């Protein structure tokens, strides 16, 4: 596998995101997920003969908001086209989409990731376009033996298809792209980006070429990617597959491949020769119209602070590292929680650590989310504050947090109740230190003869004596003095 280092991979992603509107793109049907099949349908989204689409303006607004966030050139005109093909989940035998005049033209997305040396680096990934279209229904192969059923609840749900240029160079970059994009979409509140429920879907175009080569290699399109991890794994697999082919003097075929998550491999779905001719033409049922500059500017002015802006602010205002800030802002919920904590005046770095490592670990362990966390921002800030004021040690705090989680009590109350206040009284600690020295002559001797690890044993004894309440730094300091 040394050969792989001689190659460069070229990756472009097509992301379909469901826009979070109350009603569908061309009719008034609700968009809620998980309703009884075909309940959310009407003559329009069922494509009944004679029915006509009417654009839901909210969809356009959300689409343009995303366009602004990706620094896209917003189109002057809005035009829809028909993409014609036969499939049972497509009731009209055409999908209303945008072909040559996408609402959002070229833009870019900046991704952040760690390079080989662990340094955070930024890469600007160009966006080719982001256009509006309607979703299709869903085929169900279970229920009636030997039959396929169609659920049109999803038909007509608004989608934004965001197409990147082939600027991504590794599976890691593709992953970082998705993380950044998801964060932006969540900040804009245009989509819940739930890949399991299908509100975010991704296809990847992958090709490889020898380093230094400027021509593009033959690409394969990978479909059926159900998680960000699957995107990462499938791209990695595909790169290796293609490099092997080229190394063995075989040809990469332009085709669509399906990712099999269980087998961890991609398989041929259809070749280019079998590709559809979609016979695009302008949708005559929707009259093209102009987007006014006022509307564009109005929508721009409604943009919230976006993840990267927030990350910069976290670094500048709170002195967080680029990495910490980047991780914090990835999920809007987390960053909101973090800022909420800081309102209590606790130090940022300490709060960030406690939020990202201890609380997150606990949430994972309890299989819950920050949103449902029984420890709210004020409560966590209370705990951090106790650590900051050295009322309790970090070690004690680690014991306190799960109790807070279980009981919903404040850190202060728990510490008081259980008598966990850290001992910072030098005299008190000195007494304990003297007792420990007296009781452990062997270790004392070991230490004096150069066995430094004996010191940590003695500190451990001190902590044991004080039930962990002694201020560790102080205990260390005093012990060392006494042993001199």
């Amino acid at each position, binding site marked *: 596998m040394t050969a792989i280092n001689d190659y460069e991979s070229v990756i472009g992603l097509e992301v379909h995101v469901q826009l979070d509107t109350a009603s569908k793109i061309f009719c008034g049907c609700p968009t809620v997920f998980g309703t009884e099949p075909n309940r959310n349908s009407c003559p329009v989204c069922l*494509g009944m*003969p004679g029915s*006509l689409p009417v654009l839901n303006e909210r969809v356009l607004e959300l689409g343009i908001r995303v366009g602004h966030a990706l620094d896209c050139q917003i189109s002057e005109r809005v035009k829809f086209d028909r993409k014609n093909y036969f499939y049972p989940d497509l009731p009209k035998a055409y999908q209303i989409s945008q072909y040559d005049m996408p609402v959002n033209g070229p833009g870019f997305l900046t991704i952040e990731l760690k390079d080989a040396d662990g340094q955070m680096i930024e890469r600007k990934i160009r966006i080719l376009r982001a256009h509006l279209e309607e979703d299709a229904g869903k085929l169900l192969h279970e229920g009636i033996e030997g039959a396929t059923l169609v659920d049109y609840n999803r038909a007509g749900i608004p989608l934004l298809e965001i197409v990147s240029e082939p600027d991504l160079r590794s599976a890691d970059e593709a992953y970082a792209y998705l993380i950044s994009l998801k964060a932006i979409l969540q900040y804009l509140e245009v989509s819940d980006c739930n890949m399991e429920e299908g509100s975010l879907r991704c296809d990847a175009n992958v090709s490889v070429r020898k380093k230094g080569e400027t021509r593009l290699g033959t690409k394969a399109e990978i479909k059926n990617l159900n998680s960000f991890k699957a995107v990462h794994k499938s791209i990695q697999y595909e790169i290796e597959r293609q490099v092997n082919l080229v190394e063995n003097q075989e040809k990469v075929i332009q085709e669509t491949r399906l990712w099999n998550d269980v087998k961890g491999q991609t398989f041929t779905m259809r070749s280019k020769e079998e590709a559809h001719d979609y016979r695009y033409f302008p949708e005559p049922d929707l009259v093209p119209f102009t987007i006014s500059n006022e509307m564009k500017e109005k929508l721009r002015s409604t943009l919230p602070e976006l993840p990267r802006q927030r990350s910069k602010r976290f670094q500048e205002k709170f002195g967080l590292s680029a990495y910490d800030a980047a991780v914090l802002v990835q999920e809007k919920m987390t960053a909101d929680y973090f800022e909420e904590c800081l309102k209590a005046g606790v130090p940022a770095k300490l709060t960030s650590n406690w939020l990202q490592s201890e609380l997150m670990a606990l949430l994972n362990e309890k299989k819950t989310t920050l949103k449902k966390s029984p420890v709210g921002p004020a409560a966590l800030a209370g705990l951090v504050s106790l650590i900051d004021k050295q009322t309790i040690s970090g070690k004690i705090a680690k014991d306190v947090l799960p109790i807070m989680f279980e009981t919903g009590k404040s850190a202060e109350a728990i510490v008081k109740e259980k008598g966990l206040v850290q001992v910072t009284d030098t005299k008190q600690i000195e007494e304990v230190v003297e007792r420990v020295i007296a009781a452990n002559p062997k270790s004392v001797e070991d230490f004096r003869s150069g066995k430094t690890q004996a010191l940590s044993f003695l500190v451990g004894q001190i902590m044991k004596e004080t039930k962990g309440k002694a201020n560790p730094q102080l205990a260390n300091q005093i012990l060392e003095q006494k042993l001199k």
Partner: protein
Amino acid sequence: MPETLHHFTLKQALDFISKEGPAPLYKELSQRIQEHNPQINAILRFNLEDYESVEKHGGKGKYALVPVAVKDNICIRGRETSCASKILSKHVPPYDATVVTKLKDSGVSIFAQCNMDEFAFGSSSETSAYGIIRNPWDLERVPGGSSGGSAAAVAAGMAIAALGSDTGGSIRQPAAFCGVVGLKPTYGRISRYGLIAFGSSFDQIGPITKTVEDTALLLGLMAGHDPRDSTSAREAVPDYTKALRRDVKGLRIGLPEEYFVEGMDPEVEKSVRAAAELLKKMGAEVKSVKLPHTRYAVAVYYIVAVAEASSNLGRFDGVAYGMRVSKDNLQEMYFETRSEGFGAEAKRRILLGTFVLSAGYYDAYYRQGQKVRTLMREDFSNAFKEVDVLLSATAPTAAFKIGEKSTDPLAMYLSDILTIPANLAGIPAISLPCGFTKSGLPIGLQLMGRPFDEETLLRTAYTFEQAVEVYKQRPKL
């Protein structure tokens, strides 16, 4: 009086119902249909349900219980709407077309559903899956198409008035062939919601009636913006009956040179020119105008309209609508269903439309066609700087013989040569009877106007109609 009940106009029917009640009229129409429809085949279905239920609950609205027939491509909730196609047989829409809702709200009873060319593909009413329709004036001749059933039903006294749809002349040409009035309104004047689409950027619903007055009445009931149809216009709807006055003084009428084509029946040309003369005598100015891109009209139409049609008809694939031929796999089910379900003309247009949209051909055909369409629109807007109304024949000939053109699609397509341009440009156009050939076939006069200026068309048509009174003649059945 009762023996001519079936020849009542909408206006007369309204007066009659208010005095005598609806029962005699419905009885008469039912009898008339039973007597003549087996021959003419203009009506696919009629029922008295609407009438009976409305009567039971007391007719409401200005037009309470006035019977109107509709073309079978306009959706009626709970009633089979088949587009005269096998593939849509037994298709029962769960909703009313907007025009149907509007008519029902005015009290109108949707009395009958009219036969037509399958999916409105045709100019002779010979492509219906339910048999050809005959012209009441000469049963060996076609009634025109595709709204041949609507026009024949009105002419034969089987309907008081009817709705048709016009994509390339489908209201006007059959109206001309059957000696009745037919209006294709401006594109966007009447909602298309619930009209099973053929060429979405051309289709308009319009009235087919015995008089210009009836056309004005029905247009007024149906016109206006519909939030369910993005292509419907927000233009205010005037009171069209106010346009019904005999007044063409100072009206500037243009005769498009290109519309007096070679191959035109001299009798038709003579009759149309005489109509222009008459209007001139009544005070109109008549002059010759040019519409230079007319010669491309038929070609452009049969590219763009069939392209839209091929896409519109994709949904008839055996999955959700109409008939299905069950097969073991999806591909075969599609093939067999569509092979069996569509008639020859529908297949021809689907193939043609699919071809012109295909990769590699799109620019040469569809895109080029749209460009020519723009040029034709400009032709009209230039002409309307000089004149208020354009006058021509509706069709180059009177009704032709059954079978005469059905084996020659090109000859058939050319019979729409004078009506297609108005659809390409989206402008309103009306056809009204202006005379008869020596053999007694009606001749249609076409008037075209500026977008949303149906009033001038109605005024001109009314003035002419009242002066010549051709409309009073009825076929002898």
